[in-house]
């Protein structure tokens, strides 16, 4: 009996939390006419025409460009963050380098509203010609990702037995060699987790995408709103719903693939932060 109540509560919570996703998914398969006569959760005549519209490139709207931008920016923001954080994490754990200064400083960065750096970064980018470029936005995503990536990697390297390092040192392997040949490969699960996390975070970022891009480097979180006024006039809700599904799908798939790891990572981030 109690378990039946539990399932009911679960169903209710799952429905409420995922409600916008359900509505958007349902609406994306409705024709414009059906939306105006039947805005409910039932589809009478499912259609793919909204997706066809979204995937059609016009001179104003190009979903493939936005998706490619999001992908490039997220990939750069993730790989660069890991490349910078891995050696630093190794120095922090094994060399106790900056354990009391650098590490807390970067960990706390996670709690600082990044909007406070937005204006000088905008000016810097304007000066260097990085506005509306994937490279520029990728740099910002690197900043966004570094704190959590560093925490994950510091935790992972702390768990690597020191005997591994020692054995390699006796064999005359250099520090850098140990990092890349021994510690790095042992930490591969943590590296994968931090990359997935970073990728999702960067893909979903909005504020800097809005400020730093205008046309060439627009990410999909920003580009999606362009479709809301696709044909002048009122919003075509079916098209808008379809573009939101397309933009939300990649991180959702990644998250579903990795959800067991993600909860553990959030815990690690919370405890340290």
């Amino acid at each position: 009996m109690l378990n039946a109540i539990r399932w009911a509560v679960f169903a209710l919570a799952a429905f409420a939390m995922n409600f916008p996703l359900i509505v958007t998914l349902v609406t994306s398969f409705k024709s414009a006419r059906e939306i105006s006569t039947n805005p409910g959760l039932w589809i009478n005549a499912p259609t793919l025409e909204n997706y066809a519209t979204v995937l059609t490139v016009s001179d104003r709207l190009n979903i493939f460009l936005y998706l490619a931008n999001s992908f490039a920016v997220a990939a750069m923001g993730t790989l660069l963050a890991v490349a910078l954080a891995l050696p630093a994490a190794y120095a922090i754990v094994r060399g106790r380098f900056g354990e009391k200064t650098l590490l807390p400083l970067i960990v706390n960065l996670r709690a600082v509203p990044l909007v406070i750096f937005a204006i000088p970064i905008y000016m810097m980018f304007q000066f260097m010609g990085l506005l509306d470029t994937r490279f520029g936005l990728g740099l910002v995503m690197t900043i966004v990702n570094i704190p959590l990536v560093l925490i994950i990697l510091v935790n992972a390297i702390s768990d690597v037995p020191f005997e591994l390092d020692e054995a390699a040192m006796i064999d005359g392997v250099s520090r850098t060699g140990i990092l890349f040949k021994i510690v790095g490969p042992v930490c591969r699960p943590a590296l994968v987790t931090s990359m997935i996390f970073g990728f999702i975070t960067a893909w979903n970022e909005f504020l800097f995408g809005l400020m730093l891009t205008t046309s060439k480097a627009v990410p999909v979180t920003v580009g999606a709103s362009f479709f809301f006024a696709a044909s002048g006039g009122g919003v075509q809700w079916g098209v808008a719903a379809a573009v939101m599904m397309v933009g939300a799908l990649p991180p959702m798939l990644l998250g579903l693939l990795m959800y067991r790891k993600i909860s553990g990572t959030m815990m690690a981030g919370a405890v340290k932060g």
Partner: protein
Amino acid sequence: METTHRLEWTLLATPLMMFLLVCLGFPAIVNLIYSVSDISFETLRSPEISGFGNFAAVLTDSGFWRANWFSLRFGLLTAILECLIGLGLAVFLAPLFKDRSWPIAILMLPLMVAPALMGLMYRLVLHEFAGPVPHYLWAWFGNSPAFLGPNSAFWTLIVVETLQWTPFAFLLFHMAYQAIPEELREAASIDGATGLARFWRIELPLMLPTLAAALLIRFIDGFRVFDNVYVLAGSGAGGSTTSLSIYIYEAFFKQAAIGKAVAASVILFAASFAVLYGLNRLARRRRR
């Protein structure tokens, strides 16, 4: 020997330090200089130091204080709601997750969606003609409120934020709950503690650190909210839904009031630094 090691470690950490210095240290200095300068889009490269006029302009702007008040209320309310619901779900539903994890995947799905897209989705959900919520409210009750009108926008946004981020709190509590040793629960049951007493006396105290962390993280995220509020309500009627992040963004991009925007940034920077410094000291003292 010791010094060569030191050099090696420094070299390994140098790329990260350089990157942060250029990408954050430099902007921080620019912020400080601009905040005490007479600045416009024409004089960006030759700021003229002019004293604390920008700070005075911000601190006497009622819009700035309204934005602070919005962010504070929004951060506190959403953090508390998310943690209460998340904790309740994690504890009450725990038996469901014992030997299956797919229900957790369903609950955490909203966390994967960009808050900006989630905000746009609610524009559809709440739309008076195309949205299912007004549709059903009309059909069942013959009435539907203006969800994004000046009186209800704040509460609509609270619900939107809470529904998306409760899963985050839920996950943290779920992990903390699973980490409580089974023997502890058994011992309590043998001593005659019922479910509720076990929760208050044993489980909740053990999860208090997680509760503190979850409250803090959710408060910070709620305080600095931008994406979903911006796409859903903008700055709202008469600035009623202007968060501090939106205030800074609009001062810069909409009003071209660079000095004001930068001064507000510096104030926010100093405030978050002070809060974080205090919290770190507190945490360190408790650990001793």
